[in-house]
């Protein structure tokens, strides 16, 4: 079992308290944009994901804890959580992720 750092509780908590909630940083189009979208564009927004191999930004949900959603950089090959950060923070650049991995 993993310990995952929740940025809201500011604590490492057992994995069983968390739920994975899909890819992070996908912005939902607003109502006006939605009405302009074609079916193909809509299905792309709904279903098409990067499914990255390597460091991937994901949404996680501390469902059996503080009940907050947050974002995490997780390596999908090694399953290592590089860093977790609060909702609203920008997607980290590759350089930033590299720095986190080196512990800078």
């Amino acid at each position: 079992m993993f310990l995952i750092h929740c940025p809201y509780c500011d604590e490492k908590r057992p994995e069983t308290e968390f739920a994975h909630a899909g890819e992070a940083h996908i912005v939902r189009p607003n109502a006006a944009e939605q009405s302009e979208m074609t079916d193909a564009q809509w299905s792309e927004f709904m279903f098409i994901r990067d499914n990255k191999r390597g460091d991937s930004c994901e949404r996680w949900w501390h469902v059996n804890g503080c009940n907050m959603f947050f974002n995490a950089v997780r390596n999908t090959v090694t399953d290592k959580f590089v860093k977790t950060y609060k909702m609203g923070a920008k997607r980290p650049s590759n350089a930033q992720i590299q720095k986190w991995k080196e512990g800078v």
Partner: protein
Amino acid sequence: MSYDMKIDLGVEIPEVLQSGPVTAELLGEKVRLSLRVKSADRTVVAKALGLTLPAKIGVASTKADLMTACLGPDEWIVIGETDKHAGLYEKAHKLSTKYVMSVTDVSYRNIGVVLTGQAAAEMVNVGCPLDLCLEAFPVGKCTRTVYEASPILLHRTGEDSFVMECWRSFAPYMIGLMAAHARGGFRSN
């Protein structure tokens, strides 16, 4: 609505949990309120209700039979004696027209078990992997977590005492598991 848990669920504390290194006791009827308040309004709402609303997640405050704990950035649980705090819901509900907040009466939702004894922490740890040493989980800490497969509210009320609350339909499961663990014996026995 009847609040008597013995009638609607047949929940009872098995003999093995009535004596020994850890004993369990059912918590009686309580008032439980789930409060959601915008953090900016926390102090004003707390003052208006006469409650302490801790700012830090996981911190509980117990004052005159009333326990309030911060469960999330904008979420608190309030647990108190039914006869003394029956009017609290109405009071909070009236306030909710004035501030960005909501209050829900969840009194009937949970069944609480008080665990006491030298093996109390061990009993919690059999089903919950949280670090329960006093530095990591001091007296007064309260958090939502998981016991085996059941979501629970865990509150440390003393070095060797905890209150575990689960949603009432999970109570036979949770108490049954605790009894099974108790039959297996404890390390700190």
